[in-house]
């Protein structure tokens, strides 16, 4: 099943089983069904609960936090993650604070889903990866899923069980990919272990966790690229890496999921699609240095987008964003030069 279909299905299931669930967003009703067709055909069956809103992210988030406080479970679509900035005041100064400001008398179980990421030639304002602006705000959970995470289970939990605002980052490139869930600890060429809890962290290995040269932390839409680079590296050079893929990015960030793998490898690599400075990778590296300093035998390697706006032209976009080839090169030479 394609991931776009999987999300559509779980939204249908949520609408069917939970009368408190409302979908809201710009042009999400039929026939358009949202810019990425995720809400396709839902408005026909749930006319009053799948709602087109004006082009005003600020009011959309504001209205939703009011609904959430009154016991509903709004699910918002922000058409492009780049426009999260327009709803930022409602999110940062209101939705995330209400629970604390009103002494725990209210919850704001609002769920915002929004696509981020480039590789489609959409230019500087429709291709960004802006998780870093949302991370580190107390009171908000930020999730990002890969094709090997169960969209179904995580959606159900986040929409129906959470009490705080949850933002789910969906990478555009993943929509046209298939869900590849691990079966009996295997998926494709990889051996996979999954941490417990509603937001599992996956650890992938090509040699059943025997030994590896690096622990690569990545998330969301970067996983397919890192997997390809890792497989190629194994085939060409017999350099094995373990890939650690959290689904809950923060906050607070607890990186205990990286410990087991770091014990085996002693080297931390962080791959992310956002710009490198002051982001998720910076935080993971900093925490690893303070918490697992003795496990680290080599310098941390960071692979991320250049600190630059994303160009429209595909060939220039490719230069800015990390891709399969440069992940392969950076991993290979980072490991070979320093071991």
């Amino acid at each position: 099943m394609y991931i776009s279909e999987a999300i559509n299905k779980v939204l249908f299931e949520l609408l069917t089983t939970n009368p408190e669930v409302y979908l809201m967003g710009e042009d999400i009703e039929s026939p358009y069904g949202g810019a990425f067709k995720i809400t396709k055909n839902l408005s026909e069956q749930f006319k009053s609960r799948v709602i087109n809103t004006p082009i005003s992210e600020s009011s959309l988030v504001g209205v939703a936090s009011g609904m959430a406080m009154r016991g509903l479970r709004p699910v918002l679509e922000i058409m492009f993650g780049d426009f999260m900035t327009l709803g930022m005041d409602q999110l940062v100064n209101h939705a995330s604070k209400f629970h604390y400001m009103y002494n725990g008398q209210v919850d704001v179980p609002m769920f915002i889903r929004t696509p981020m990421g480039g590789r489609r030639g959409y230019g500087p304002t429709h291709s960004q990866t802006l998780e870093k602006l949302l991370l580190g705000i107390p009171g908000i959970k930020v999730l990002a899923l890969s094709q090997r995470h169960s969209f179904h289970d995580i959606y159900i939990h986040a929409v129906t069980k959470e009490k705080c605002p949850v933002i789910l980052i969906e990478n555009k490139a993943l929509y046209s990919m298939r869900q590849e869930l691990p079966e009996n600890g295997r998926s494709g060429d990889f051996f996979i272990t999954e941490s417990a809890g509603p937001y599992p962290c996956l650890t992938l290995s090509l040699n059943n966790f025997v030994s590896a040269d690096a622990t690569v932390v990545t998330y969301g839409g970067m996983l397919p690229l890192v997997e390809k680079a890792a497989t190629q590296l194994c085939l060409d050079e017999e350099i094995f890496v373990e890939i650690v893929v959290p689904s809950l990015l923060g906050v607070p960030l607890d990186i205990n999921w990286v410990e087991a793998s770091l014990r085996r490898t002693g080297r931390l690599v962080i791959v992310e699609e956002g710009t490198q400075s002051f982001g998720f990778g910076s935080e993971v590296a900093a925490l690893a240095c303070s918490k697992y300093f003795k496990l680290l035998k080599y310098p941390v390697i960071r692979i991320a987008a250049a600190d630059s706006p994303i160009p429209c032209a595909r060939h220039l976009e490719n230069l800015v964003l990390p891709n399969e080839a440069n992940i392969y090169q950076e991993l290979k030479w980072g490991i070979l030069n320093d071991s």
Partner: protein
Amino acid sequence: MTHDILVPRINSNDDSYILVEWEFSAGDFVKEGDVLCVIETSKSTFEIHAEESGYIHIFVHEHSKIKEGDAICRLSKEKEMPLNEKFDLSRNPSLASDKQIKATKKAIETARDLGVDLGKMMGDGIISQKDVEAFAQSQNVEDKKQQEVSFVTFKMDRDRIINDEFLKELLKDLGDRREFASLPSQKKIEIYRDKGALIGEDVKFERGSCIISQFMDIGAGTVFGENSVFQSKAMKIGRMCRFGDQLRVASTLLDIGDLLFTDNGIKIGEGGEWGPESILKIGDSCFIGEECMINTSRTVTIGNEVCLAYGAKIFTHNFWQPVLDGYAALFNPVKINDGSVIGVNVVIMPGVEVGAGSSVLTNSLLATNVPSGSVYAGIPAMMIKPAGSYPINLSYDEREKMIYKIFESLAEDLSFKGDDAQVLQEKEGVKLIWRNENTVFVYRRRLKSGDDLGAGAFKRWVLLTFENVLEDLKDAITVFDLSKKEVNGKQDEYSDELREALRKRGIRFKPILWRYKRRAQWIDLPMPLKFEK
């Protein structure tokens, strides 16, 4: 005729598609334009149509991931799958990643060095170098046993092993005087037989030729050309072999089948000839062209009906720079399987295996294995046609057209020699009437007992057929059976005429003849005046 169906480019968004379902099962007959299968893109489904009619051979399972350019099935005139499926998967990289054994480059190299078949390794996940080494370790005991068995390829009678000064004298003799070598053939044979060698009837050691071996078993009718020197610990050579002049052959063990034909100036040995693995095995009916070189540092195995064309060279070792400085030193056996052809000046590197019925084209440098029925060419040699491209199962109609052309060109040749020959296309076959010799060549797809053959106006009847059910052949009849590749009946200069015409198109009959009873010497032929201006 076969036709592979490839995945087209369907849209620009997807790297790969899903094959949802097949509309036919393997072996079904498909008509041109039929929907073969349904492919799903990220946006829609898409039907693939048959571009021609034929039986379908499916390469890809339902629900598999496929990429643009992958071959998903083959349409063939033959119902049976003519090739092994394993190889076809490897043609499609994206399929290979799903279905085939995956191994790292180091693992593949190690497997080649240790002689491990990756296909036999029951791996979970990607096979690494360590996995291969562990597997080789577990296999080692078994391998050693096999090696011991394969070393001795023929039985030797202990009493016939020559173990005295005679051989040492021969070696000295070769150095300067060549006294023994210049003896007449019959004399040399007598001396050898006297020492215990097994030598059949009509064997000839031409002037200057000499064999220095502790065990000799030479079949009847074999001829050793002038100034040829053979050295080996033990040798077994089949019947009716023809070795050219100026051969230098040195190998611990020589095991050569019947009817080998070699041209002049062949070199066998060329380094490492007295090692335990210096073995040359050649099957029946092979051809080795002039100035070929076979290096026997390690075992070289050549199957039946293999052709090594002019100047082909086989190496089983490859070293020069010191291994202590990280350079490679290679010693690996080479195997060439039945019915393959190694082109002019091809160089074969150590460790290569050429599959049955394959072709390696002129001047190639062959450093990889060649699967059966494929065509390779280039430096280094690359695949030109995939495994199983040959043999092609042609229909009888197509074959009959070819036979008609062969008859036509045979008639032309005969006319050039001043004979009266005429080809007639008949309802049931083709007929070539060779009037002045009172002979007729007849092609019939099937010969029946009731046919009016072997009688009437002609003195000689030479018959060519795919299916021979004639029981008793009259004296004046020769039958060439194209299915069994056999000749029955009388064989003389008339039947050889057809036999030679067929041989020039690669059609050989058992026993294979390299020498023919020629009707006319070239000196007797008329001047080709029509070519003059």
